[in-house]
């Protein structure tokens, strides 16, 4: 089909083909059963048309074997499809460990996207071809849903929480970015474009634009601006724990239990510091709720991520 009247979406990500394969697999199953029933009932209608008004056909009560047969077959087929679809789902939601990190903030009615180098975009997202990209997303107001049909990916964007999504673009071009969860008046205009660029073009685009500071640099500036560094000293001598190399570790908590230091934990620690205090420290940190924007929090997270422990750096 030509582009002005397409009947099928582009296959522009690494798993578009697999999703489509499942789609056509189920479609074949459906067509088979639909045709089976339709052909049968049409034949019956023609063959067993009522001949006279007082005709009474033989009354067949039922057939246990048949019932078991047509209960078991759909059950087995349905479970087969379930396994196929669920295996695919786990593949779709599990990002590779080396994926590029990008950040998305949804608000009525626009998408704010940010690259790890600090470049910000509104309703446009540039990504390099063949590179895995992991998005960390949150919303400033209501529910949104981040949807790129050509990549076959979608995930709700929930206020108060981070959700994730990943993809690997496999075809250069521009694709629709939709908000799929109804979010108010301009819901249908909360759309954008994803540009897939060759890696060298992506680099050129990144450096060619306005000089934005990288996210961790912005984060570091905020870290000093809010005087975080006065307690969270790098050598661990401050009133709060050192944040160097902390990201991704599981820490013991005051009062028992452990917590994984991830994006959500850092965000919680900024907004509600006393909720999960690391073992050995006092709950003295003030809340920064209402003082730092969602973007600011993401920048601080990026900065904390960049604080790698020295031996880790050596190993890499």
């Amino acid at each position: 089909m030509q582009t002005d009247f397409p009947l099928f979406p582009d296959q522009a990500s690494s798993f578009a083909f697999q999703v489509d394969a499942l789609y056509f697999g189920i479609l074949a199953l459906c067509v088979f059963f639909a045709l089976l029933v339709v052909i049968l009932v049409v034949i019956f209608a023609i063959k067993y048309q009522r001949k006279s008004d007082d005709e009474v056909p033989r009354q067949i009560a039922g057939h246990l074997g048949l019932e078991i047969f047509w209960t078991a077959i759909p059950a087995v087929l349905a479970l087969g499809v379930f396994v196929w679809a669920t295996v695919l789902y786990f593949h779709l939601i599990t990002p590779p460990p080396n994926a590029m990190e990008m950040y998305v903030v949804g608000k009525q009615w626009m998408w704010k996207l940010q690259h790890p180098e600090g470049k910000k975009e509104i309703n446009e997202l540039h990504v390099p071809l063949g590179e895995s990209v992991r998005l960390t997303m949150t919303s400033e107001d209501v529910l949104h849903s981040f949807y790129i049909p050509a990549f076959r990916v979608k995930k709700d964007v929930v206020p108060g929480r981070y959700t994730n999504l990943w993809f690997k673009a496999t075809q250069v071009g521009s694709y629709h970015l939709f908000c799929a969860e109804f979010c108010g008046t301009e819901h249908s205009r909360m759309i954008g474009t994803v540009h897939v660029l060759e890696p060298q073009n992506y680099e050129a685009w990144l450096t060619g634009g306005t000089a934005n500071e990288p996210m961790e640099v912005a984060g570091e500036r905020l870290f000093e601006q809010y005087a975080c560094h006065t307690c969270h000293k790098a050598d661990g001598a401050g009133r709060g724990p050192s944040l160097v190399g902390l990201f991704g570790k599981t820490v013991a908590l005051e009062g028992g239990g452990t917590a994984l230091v991830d994006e959500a934990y850092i965000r919680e620690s900024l907004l509600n510091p006393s909720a999960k205090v690391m073992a050995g420290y006092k709950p003295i940190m003030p809340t920064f709720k209402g003082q730092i924007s969602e973007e600011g929090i993401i920048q601080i997270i990026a900065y904390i991520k960049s604080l790698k422990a020295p031996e880790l750096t050596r190993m890499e």
Partner: protein
Amino acid sequence: MADHAVHHDHPHGLAHQFEDMPQQKESAIIGMWSFLITEILFFGGFFATYLIYRSYYPEAFFEGSSHLDISLGAFNTAVLIISSLTMAMAVHKSHEGNKKGIMVYLILTGILGLTFLVVKYFEYSAKIEYGLVPGLVWHPHGENSPQLALFYSLYFGMTGMHALHMIIGIGLLIWLFIKTAQGTYTAEYNAPVEIFGLYWHFVDIVWIFLFPLLYLLGTQGGGH
């Protein structure tokens, strides 16, 4: 509720759609139980909400709970249990067709129900005074404030819905009392008293769960 159209060829109190009294009575009881199922699920939505937020914010819930007055809660629990006993006695008397007995026990039940509501009124007033009503008068400003508000939202939602059921119950009780005084209920025809009893006991059961969940969990001050 059964239909009270009186037919001359029918026993007293038998509605036209039924064949005999046992069928009518069974229908009434099954009807009330069907209604109580919906009530279980209705309060169930509240309890599910409570359960989930409680497991997420135990500290805030302990703190919220510790502001509630256990002695008032325990007193009200006792009041409702006594009222359940008197209601059960009213049903018992209705089986005997004892008009005076039904009336005495209905009055007692009504008084106990009102006592419960009066105590509840004083509890609510205290909460309003201390500014513990989310959205309307809310004074706490700590870091836990939203979660604390969640506890009080649930507190007012659940006890408010329970109190509403009590008020409806007392209204029905007055109606039953008048009907009894008119001599409507006999040893054969007493289904309305019986199914109202089911309703009243159900409202008591809801409170039996509300009391520990809302009042008692604050005593250990973060026992986890």
